[in-house]
């Protein structure tokens, strides 16, 4: 290590953050959380020892920041190899690439995320709007203080939950540990830190954005699915009627001038193609949204 040995816990954590600066931000958050738990426990278990000498001995047991960073990097690679299902092999042909999307579990989970995002978007938006107005209204009274703390805590909890959803459904690595801001500071400073932490603001922005985004995702997914499925079902119905199997009594109109025996299969094909297009759309939305969530929920606080 080319820097001086850390003398306080925040210095140690800063050194660890520097060592991990090119790692995935979600990994950084997990590593910092684990280190903080260990360091604070060690400090609590040895009352009376000064922080600097304690940290010197921790470099031997827990590891110095550089070693810890190396361990987390290595483990992340091993876990990623062991736990992730391998992506399907890329197909060279254009039709293979187009239809192969149906085998990509990521496209299906992203489609489900699009449908779910309306509900989560409403919850997030309502929480932030209610919290901001309550806080603003009560700010001048003493009861405003616990309300602010509860509200910011709730925003962080919701960001963690959203992070878990995004990682499970969109495949973007997100933190597994909540954001933790240093203890041991006076109350007022901790409350001030909540307001100066850019991640508090960007998490709220994300949660506000989730309502319009959720509406757009939900509408796009539902429209795409219903149009495609409607075309397939209409095609099947028209075909069955043309073959004389069922009689819809004129309720199914395929193409006014075309022979239903020709038009119905064409409609079904268009519907099936539409389903694949919807899956492609879901996968693309999933990628974009994962990047947005990473940016607003994780990255902003790590410089």
């Amino acid at each position: 290590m080319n820097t001086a040995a850390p003398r306080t816990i925040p210095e140690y954590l800063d050194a660890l953050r520097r060592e991990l600066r090119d790692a995935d931000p979600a990994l950084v958050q997990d590593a910092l959380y684990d280190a903080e738990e260990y360091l604070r426990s060690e400090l609590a278990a040895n009352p009376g020892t000064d922080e600097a000498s304690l940290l010197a001995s921790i470099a031997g047991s827990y590891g110095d920041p550089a070693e810890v960073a190396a361990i987390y990097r290595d483990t992340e690679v091993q876990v990623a190899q062991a736990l992730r299902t391998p992506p399907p092999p890329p197909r060279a042909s254009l039709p293979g690439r187009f239809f192969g999307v149906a085998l990509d579990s990521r496209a299906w989970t992203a489609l489900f995320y699009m449908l779910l995002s309306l509900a989560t978007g409403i919850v997030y938006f309502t929480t932030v709007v209610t919290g901001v107005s309550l806080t603003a209204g009560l700010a001048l009274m003493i009861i405003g203080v616990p309300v602010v703390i509860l509200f910011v805590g709730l925003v962080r909890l919701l960001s963690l939950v959203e992070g878990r959803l995004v990682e499970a459904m969109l495949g973007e690595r997100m933190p597994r540990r909540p954001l933790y801001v240093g203890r041991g500071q006076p109350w007022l400073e901790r409350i001030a830190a909540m307001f100066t932490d850019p991640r508090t603001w960007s998490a709220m922005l994300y949660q506000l954005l989730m309502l319009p985004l959720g509406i757009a995702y939900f509408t796009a997914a539902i429209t795409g699915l219903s149009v495609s499925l409607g075309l397939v079902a209409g095609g099947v119905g028209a075909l069955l009627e043309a073959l004389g199997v069922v009689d819809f009594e004129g309720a199914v109109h395929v193409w006014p001038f075309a022979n239903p025996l020709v038009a119905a299969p064409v409609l079904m094909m268009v519907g099936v193609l539409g389903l694949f297009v919807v899956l492609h759309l879901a996968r693309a939305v999933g990628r974009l949204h994962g990047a947005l969530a990473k940016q607003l929920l994780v990255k902003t606080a790590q410089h």
Partner: protein
Amino acid sequence: MTDIDPHLKKFQKELSAGTVSLVLLAVLAQSGEPLYGYQIAKRLEQTGDPLLGGKQSALYPVLRNLSAAGLADSHVEPSVSGPPRRYYRITALGQRVLAEWRMSWETTRQSVDAVLEGNLR
């Protein structure tokens, strides 16, 4: 010493990568109550050097993996000294897996010992 040192380090690293899950699962199995990361690290420290020169920070990602694999389950409790602690407890699946790992470890140890002591025919 310096020229064999890197070889020793590499060997220890590989050994510990293979055994650390077994050791952690055994610690969880022997404990009657859920344990958090720091407690587990301190228990291992008492037994000497089960991590083979490795650092205790390596435990945390492994604990998370055990939990993700369903061998241990975990819950969070607030703590007065620092961030909320994640407590781990072995699951029924973990108990069964540990029994299998133990047998596999015994077999490996016996055959490695047999080779090292030259008891081959």
